[in-house]
C-alpha cells in the first residue's frame, strides 16, 4: 500500500518537474500556459492522493481549491494577458535552450544532494518527492532569472509557488488550512500586482521584454 502511495506521489512530482522543463524547452507563451495548467492539475492530484492515503479530509478541500484557482482561474487570466499582447517577436532568453536544459539537470542533481539529509530524517512514505520539490524550486528560480519576457517570469513565479506547496504536501502532509488559504491569497495578490505591472510595461515600451526596463536608468 505504502509502495503504491509513494510510487504515485513520485510520478506526480516528476510530472510537475517535467512541466517546468517544458517552459525551458518551448518558446511559445501558450505552451507555457498549458504547462502551468498541467502542473496545477498534477499538484491537485498529488494533494488528493496524500489526502486519500493519509486520511486527511482537509486536504481534499485544498485540492479542490487548487483546481479551481490554479487549474482554471489563473490560466484563464494568463491567457487573457497573452491575447492582449498578441504575437510577440522572438525574444531570446539570457541563456539559450540547450544550456538552460543542462543547467536544469545540474540543479536537479544539486537539489538531490541537498535533500538527502532531510530524506534521512523524515519517515513519511512521500519523502521521495522532497528532492523533486526542491528541484522544482530551483528550476522555477532559474526560469525567473534567465527569461526576458515578463509573462514568462510571472509563470516562473507561479511555478515557484507550486513548488513550495508541493514541498509542504510531501514533507509534512500539508499545512493547516488557515495557512494554506493565507498563502493562496498571497499568491493571488502577487499575481494581480504583477499583471498590472506587465500591462504597464507593455504600454510604455510596446514590448514585454524586461531588458527594456534598463532604459529607466538615469
Amino acid at each position: 500500500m505504502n509502495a503504491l502511495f509513494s510510487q504515485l506521489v513520485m510520478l506526480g512530482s516528476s510530472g510537475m518537474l517535467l512541466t517546468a522543463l517544458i517552459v525551458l524547452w518551448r518558446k511559445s507563451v501558450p505552451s507555457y500556459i498549458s504547462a502551468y495548467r498541467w502542473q496545477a492539475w498534477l499538484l491537485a492530484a498529488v494533494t488528493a492522493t496524500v489526502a486519500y492515503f493519509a486520511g486527511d479530509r482537509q486536504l481534499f478541500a485544498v485540492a479542490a481549491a487548487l483546481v479551481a484557482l490554479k487549474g482554471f482561474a489563473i490560466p484563464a487570466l494568463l491567457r487573457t494577458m497573452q491575447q492582449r499582447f498578441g504575437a510577440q517577436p522572438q525574444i531570446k532568453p539570457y541563456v539559450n535552450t540547450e544550456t538552460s536544459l543542462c543547467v536544469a539537470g545540474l540543479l536537479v542533481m544539486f537539489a538531490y544532494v541537498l535533500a538527502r539529509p532531510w530524506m534521512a530524517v523524515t519517515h513519511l512514505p512521500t519523502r521521495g518527492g522532497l528532492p523533486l520539490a526542491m528541484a522544482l524550486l530551483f528550476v522555477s528560480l532559474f526560469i525567473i532569472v534567465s527569461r526576458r519576457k515578463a509573462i514568462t517570469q510571472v509563470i516562473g513565479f507561479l511555478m515557484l509557488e507550486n513548488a513550495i506547496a508541493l514541498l509542504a504536501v510531501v514533507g509534512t502532509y500539508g499545512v493547516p488550512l488557515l495557512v494554506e488559504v493565507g498563502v493562496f491569497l498571497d499568491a493571488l495578490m502577487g499575481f494581480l500586482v504583477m499583471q498590472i505591472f506587465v500591462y504597464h510595461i507593455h504600454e510604455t515600451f510596446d514590448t514585454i521584454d524586461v531588458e527594456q526596463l534598463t532604459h529607466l536608468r538615469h
Partner: protein
Amino acid sequence: MSRFLALVVQTLVAVALAPALTGFIRWLKARLQGRRGAPPWQPYFEIRKLFGKEAVVSHTASWIFTATPFVVFSTAVVVASLVPLVVVPSGPFVAGDLFAAVYLLLLGTFFLALAGLDTGSPFGGMGASREMTVVALTEPTVALSIVALALNAGSTSFSQIVAHTLAEPSAALGSEHLLAFAALFIVTLAETGRLPVDNPSTHLELTMIHEAMVLEYSGPYLALVEWGAALKLLIFLALAANLFVPWGIALSFSPVALLIGLVSLIVKLAVLSAAVAVLETRVAKLRLFRVPELLSASFVLALLAVMSTFLAR
C-alpha cells in the same frame, strides 16, 4: 548448439522483418493522412527491384563508397544478433553488451558519412556533417539511458537488465523507467532519421540528413543501405520495447519459447511503429538548429532517470 541456432534464427528473422516494419509505418502514415498507401510489403518489392538494377558509381568516388553498404549492413546484422529481440542472448559466448551495440552502429554511421563525402557532392557533405552532429549529440543520452538501466540491474549486459525487470514488475512503472524510455524513444527518432529530426521520405536539400548521405547510391548498393537502415530502426524499436516491457521474450531456447518470443516481438513492434507513425503525422520536421534543443531535453530526461534510480535507493 541450440543457443547458437536460436541466435542465427533471431538474426534472420530480424533481417527478414526489417523492410516490413518500414513498410508498415509508411502504410499507416498514408492511411492516417487519408491516402490508400502502398501495401506494407512494398519495401520487399523495392529491394528486389534494386538488386536487379545496375549500380552507377561516380568517377570521384573511391573504394570507400563501394565498401560502405557492406559495412552498414553487416554492422546492423551483427547488432541484431547481440540485442534481445526474440531471445535474450546469454551465456558465456555473448560477443558484446549495450556499449558494444552502440559503437557498432557508430561504425556504420562513420562509414556512411565518409561515403557521403566521397562523391564530392555538396549534398553528401551536408548529410555527413548533419548526421555526425546529430549522432554526437545523441551519444550522451544513449549512454545515460544505459546507465539508468544498468544501475538498476547492476550491469550493462542485456540478460541482466531483462532479468531484473522481469523479477520486479512494479519497477516497470517507476519514474526512472518511464523517463529512460522517453529519452531512448527520442534517441531512436534521431538515430534512425524519423520525424521530427529528419524526414525519411523527402529529397529536398533543406530537409535531408540521412537521405543526403545516400543520394548517390543506386542498384544493389542502395538496396543494402536501405535494408541496413530499416534493420537499424527495427533494432532500436525492439530495444526500447524489450528493455522496458520484456514480458514475452524467450528466456530459454526451446521452440515454444522462441515462438512466443517471436509473436510478442511482432506485437510490440507493431505498437511502437504505430506510435511512430502517429507521431510523424502530427509533428513537423524541426529546423536543424532546433534539433540540439530536442536532444538536450532528452539528455535531461535521461539524467532525471538516473537521478531517480539514486532516489529509489
